[in-house]
Every structure is written in structure tokens, then in C-alpha cells.
């Protein structure tokens, strides 16, 4: 369908999208169109900008005093904000904890925060489920699919997968589908549009446990569908998958990415 023949429909869809009223397959389709259609993308952005300040219009209410203490505790700021000791006192104090000791937890927390953060921005739980359980996807597609280089989700079959993840970029666009088959110990990575590493770099896939450091599942080739061995890793042990940009050959650090995390997604069991 050529949406531009129906400018009023585009405007209405964009407005309802901004309010959160476009859901499920319709939402996914609209966002997919927008990825390759600048005009539609602008319509969505314009409406988002119009509607977002609605959140500012609620009347102010004083939060309980306990709220700040909780924030300080969760961020470990209580020490930092205490009055700084005199120079003399400081010399007698123990040296600060080495930064390396706290970094992994911080990294994981940051990632899990960004999962919900990004999901909140554009992909609702229903859409995630709709994409993840891609078996019924054909019914969600337009009757005359638009021409696209991106492989259609419906055409992708990953029989036997026990867990799936939709990895989103920072704009909450789905860029990779990962199907994990625990029975056969394989992980299939399917790219959607735009999931290419920068020149001379590689994308590395990580499994992120609820606690502890992420585990590398392998470095992806520059393009195409990829099958990796899970090397006896169990999907149940992980809550999310992430992709980082690394030097060719992967992160020099075995316990985590050395480069930026570019895509993340929750790892969900297929029910």
C-alpha cells in the first residue's frame, strides 16, 4: 500500500501511534514502514513531539522523604555525598575500593536498565510477544507486502527453538532475531535491516545472566544468517542477549564486551 496517497490516514496513524493506541502487528508494521520511509518517520516524530509533553501536565506532589534515601542507596551514592573529610583525615583513611571490583555489576545493571528503558520507548510487551512467537507472523503482514530487502519475519522458520530474543537498537527498532534451540545446542541469528558492523569491526553476541558477567556466544560474520553452537550454555541461565561492537575476532576481554553495546533484547522462552 502506498501510504502517501492517504495523507490523512498517515497523520491519524502517527497521532494514534504517539498516544500508544496503535498496537501489536499494526504497530510493528507502521514502524517497519517508517524505517524506510522518511516522510512517515517525520510524521511519527512530529506527533511524538506534540504528545510527549502531556506527561508534564500532572500536578506536582511532594514525594515521601524516604524516596531520596532509596535512590542514594541504589546508586551507592551515600558515601560520595557525605561531607568530605579534611585532608589530614583523608590520609589516614583506607584507599578507595578498586574500580575494577565494582565495574561488572555496574555494567550489568546498566544493561538491564537499558532493556526496560528502550522497551518502554517504542516496543510494548505485546509487540515483543508478537514478533517473538513469529509463527503467526504471516497473518500480521500486509496482504501485499511492500518491497524490502529486509527478510520478512514470517519467512523465517527456526523449528525447534526453545527461546527467542528480538534485539533492538537504541531507537527501539528490531534489528536482529535470535532463536536458541536448547535441544540441539544451536543459536540462529537472523538480521533485519541495518544490523551491520562498522568497517573493520565485528559484532559479538553475548548472553547476559541475571547476575555475574556476560558470556560470549560468538562473533558474527559481517552479514547473513548465522548459526552458532551454544557450547552447552543453557538459555535458562540468561535473561537477555546483547550485541557489542568489537575488534575483528571479538572482545579481548573474555568476561565482557570491550566496545559499546549496540543492541539488546530479552531472552524469552517460547511457550
Amino acid at each position, binding site marked *: 500500500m502506498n501510504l502517501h496517497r492517504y495523507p490523512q490516514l498517515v497523520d491519524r496513524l502517527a497521532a494514534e501511534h504517539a498516544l500508544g493506541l496503535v498496537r501489536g502487528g499494526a504497530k510493528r508494521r507502521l514502524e517497519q514502514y517508517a524505517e524506510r520511509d522518511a516522510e512517515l518517520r517525520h510524521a511519527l516524530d512530529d506527533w511524538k*513531539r506534540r504528545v510527549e509533553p502531556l506527561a508534564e501536565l*500532572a500536578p506536582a506532589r511532594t514525594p515521601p522523604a524516604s524516596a531520596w534515601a532509596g535512590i542514594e542507596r541504589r546508586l551507592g551514592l551515600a558515601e560520595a555525598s557525605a561531607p568530605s573529610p579534611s585532608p589530614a583525615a583523608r590520609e589516614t583513611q583506607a584507599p578507595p575500593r578498586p574500580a575494577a571490583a565494582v565495574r561488572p555489576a555496574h555494567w550489568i545493571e546498566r544493561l538491564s536498565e537499558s532493556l526496560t*528503558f528502550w522497551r518502554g520507548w517504542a516496543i510494548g510487551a505485546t509487540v515483543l510477544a508478537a514478533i517473538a512467537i513469529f509463527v503467526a507472523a504471516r497473518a500480521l503482514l500486509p496482504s501485499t507486502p511492500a518491497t524490502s530487502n529486509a527478510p520478512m519475519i514470517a519467512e523465517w522458520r527456526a523449528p525447534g527453538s526453545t527461546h527467542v530474543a528480538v534485539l533492538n537498537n537504541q531507537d527501539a527498532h528490531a534489528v536482529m532475531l535470535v532463536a536458541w534451540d536448547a535441544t540441539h545446542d544451536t543459536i540462529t541469528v537472523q538480521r533485519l535491516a541495518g544490523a551491520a558492523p562498522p568497517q573493520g569491526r565485528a559484532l559479538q553476541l553475548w548472553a547476559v545472566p541475571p547476575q555475574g558477567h556476560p558470556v560470549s556466544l560468538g562473533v558474527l560474520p559481517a552479514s547473513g544468517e548465522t548459526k552458532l553452537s551454544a557450547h552447552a550454555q543453557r538459555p535458562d541461565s540468561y535473561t537477555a542477549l546483547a550485541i557489542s561492537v568489537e575488534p575483528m575476532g571479538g572482545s579481548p576481554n573474555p568476561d565482557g564486551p570491550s566496545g559499546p553495546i549496540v543492541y539488546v533484547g530479552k531472552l524469552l522462552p517460547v511457550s
Partner: protein
Amino acid sequence: MTATLRDPTQDMLAALLERVAREDSGALRELYDAVASKLFGLALRILNRHEWAEEVLQDSFVNIWRHARDYRRDVSAPMTWMSTIVRNRALDHLRRIDAEETEWSDALDDLVASDAPNPEALTQVSDAARLLAGCMQQLEPAQRQAVALAYLRDQSHSEIAAALTVPLGTVKSWIRRGLARLKLCLGGAR
């Protein structure tokens, strides 16, 4: 704390966010003093329960601390950005809890104040929000309520119809006409 006496401009909030991005915990406290009541009000509006709203407020500040470096002034005003974080965290919270647990006594109240906006209440908000507040006043109360339920409670057309006990078609046309009117009122303003 003298926070409530302040009249923080968006520039001041943006400068604080910049410091927060550099992990300046003092700046986070200043930011909290400046906007926590506004953000708590929003969380409470969405969730209607103090303990949930407090949790969401904390989540949101943890998020602000961790994502301050991603904030872009050219995309949104600081208050809009922070309010959007609170809204998203609150809606996440709504999805997590059992819908049965949620007892909104104010389903029929205006989620967005229906009176002419009190200038004092708008001192902390962005220019865009001030403009929007004025335009929301031009909507019929029912249109305004339907728009607010969609955005601030993440309700679908049919959920809104159920909440307001009107036919689905009525809700759809309220929202459609409300949005058309908003667009007209906001004009090309960016």
C-alpha cells in the same frame, strides 16, 4: 531544602543533566530537589498508589543517572525527557502488576487538570508543555479524558470505552477529533 522556592528553567535543568552525565552526585541531588515533586505527581497520576509511585520515582532517578549522557537537548526539553522516563517506568510497572490490583478511583476524573492551567504549576514545565496545556483546554472534557487515558494509562480504545462506559465508536471519534483539534491548536510549533 529551598527547592520549592526555585523556578528552574529548562536551561538550568539541562546544565544539571550535563553534570549528572559526568556522575556528579551533587548535581543529581540538585536535580532531585528541583523536579522530584513534579515527577512524583506524574507517577502518582498514573499509578494512584503512593508506594508504587515512590518506587517508580526511584527507578526513574536511577535511570536518569545512568542515561543522562544520552540526553539530547535538540530532541526534547529536559523536563519532557525526564517526564517521559517516569511515564515509561510507570507504564512498565502497570504491566508488571496484576490489573486486578489496580483500583483507580479516579477513572472518570480528568487525568490532566481541566481547569485553566495555574501559571505557578507550569513554572517547571517545558515551553511545549505550556503550549500543550493551553491546547488541551480547548478540547471537550470527554476528548481530553480519552486522550489522557491512552497516553497516561496505556489504555486501548476498547479499554477506554469500558472505563468511560461509552461505545467503542464514540471513543474512537473523541480521540480522532481531539487529536485533530490539538494539531490545529499547536500548529507548526516544534
